């Protein structure tokens, strides 16, 4: 089958578009036309490229004035970050602070880490978040009468609350 747009190259991208609720349009395009018409990302896109695309959409703010903020540590400007979607160093998260926070929240639907922390127990907020998550898991386990799992979670909570006990 040839591309329905240019008719020159073989159709490689097959799209089903959902218009309105139930109306479907099936399109058969060659890679080049698909890219041109904005239907396809470049070939062999991987998860991270795809996510980068998403991030750019999410993190770019065409209509806002871009403040001229520069990271004192690596020298990356906020405008540069908006073009690439990549930070230059760990300090950027602090340097761009409130400029990135709402966008992070939109992508992750969260602003507080609750998982593993370096050194096992860690400190401060992450530790509190971790404890919160463990307590939620504990009540879930008890509710489902998974007592063995509950005992394990309880031990973990104790080890965080009283480091150096074991």
């Amino acid at each position, binding site marked *: 089958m040839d591309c329905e747009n240019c008719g020159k190259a073989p159709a490689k991208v097959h799209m089903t578009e959902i218009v309105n609720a139930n109306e479907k349009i099936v399109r058969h395009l060659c890679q080049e036309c698909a890219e041109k018409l904005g239907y396809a990302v470049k070939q062999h896109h991987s998860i991270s490229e795809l996510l980068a695309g998403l991030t750019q959409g999410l993190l770019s703010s065409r209509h806002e004035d871009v403040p001229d903020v520069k990271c004192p540590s690596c020298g990356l400007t906020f405008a540069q970050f908006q073009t690439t*979607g990549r930070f230059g160093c760990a300090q950027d998260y602090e340097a761009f602070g409130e400029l990135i926070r709402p966008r992070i929240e939109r992508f992750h639907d969260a602003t507080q880490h609750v998982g593993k922390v370096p050194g096992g127990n860690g400190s401060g907020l992450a530790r509190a978040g971790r404890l919160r998550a463990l307590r939620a898991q504990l009540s879930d386990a008890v509710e489902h009468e998974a007592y063995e799992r509950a005992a394990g979670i309880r031990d973990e909570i104790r080890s965080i609350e009283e480091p150096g006990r074991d």
Partner: protein
Amino acid sequence: MMMTLDDLARQTGAWLGGSGPLSEVVISSRARLARNVASFNFATRMTPEDKTDLERHARAAIEAEGVAAPGLYVDLFGASPVDRKLLVERHLISREHEEATGQRGVAIGADERVSIMVNEEDHLRIQALLAGLAVGEAWRRVDEVDTALERRLDFAFDPAYGYLTACPTNIGTGLRVSVMLHLPALAITRQIEKVFQAVARLNLAVRGFYGEGTEATGHFYQVSNQSSLGKTEEEIVRNIEAVMPQIVEHELGAREALLSKERLRLEDRTWRAYGMLRHARTVSSDETLALLSAVRMGVQLGVLTGVPLKTVNELMVFTQPAHLQKKEGRDLSPAERDAARGAYLRARLAELESN
């Protein structure tokens, strides 16, 4: 004993074993952790000297902790393009890592279960790849490697945002888990979109593993978590593992329905695919994947016997361009590759028939 890249090209990674939970449908499970060393800039702001320096630190930590033992470290900067592609086909490095520039590498552990990319988008990308549905086990393995490396490397971490990464979509746990699924019956019976919709509601992403567009070549799909912040690693693992038995059940149900309603067509489809693989003189890699997909389903339904799932999985990887070129020991044009692929498939299947 030190393994070489040539040994690797000849052996089979553990994830191709064709065994493991739900392996009729779930080919492999992967967990990947993103980590950055606090005292260095992220990749885009590193000088060539920084990259060399970071690689030296990282390699020293990896070797001292023995986390990728017995150990093969491939210097990707110095490696040939075919060697780099071989590692992508083997799922040991990302396509980005293959195509990047500058000093970078990968440490590969026993049976290719663990690999650690150095100087990827993040300083370290720790990955575990296992056969079947084993996301929890894959997470445990990367967790173990991370805990060991943490003894020697100080990772960038923030109390609120967790592990800090070059791309803000990876912060928090830095964890991305994924499974590779084979869903031919759901695709043939046009039920796959329903699965996609259900999975999307759980905040998981689906994409075709091979090929482009909505028709994934061979009906291989990858499901992975979207966000990495705000949930514990265990929650992320459980979220993806919980949905798998249902998808597998739907796929197997659709296969059984095909078998009972259209047995002759299904048998014909399977044996035609086998016949092509067994006798064709020239085959493209896309066609090979589509044919192997049909054979794989036929094997699982008992329509075709004598071809183990392990062989089907191996053929999917060993018939890819870099593997063929490595085997032939030279660069091959696309036409030469198609011929070499045909010859390789004929030889492997003839060997099975003679046993």
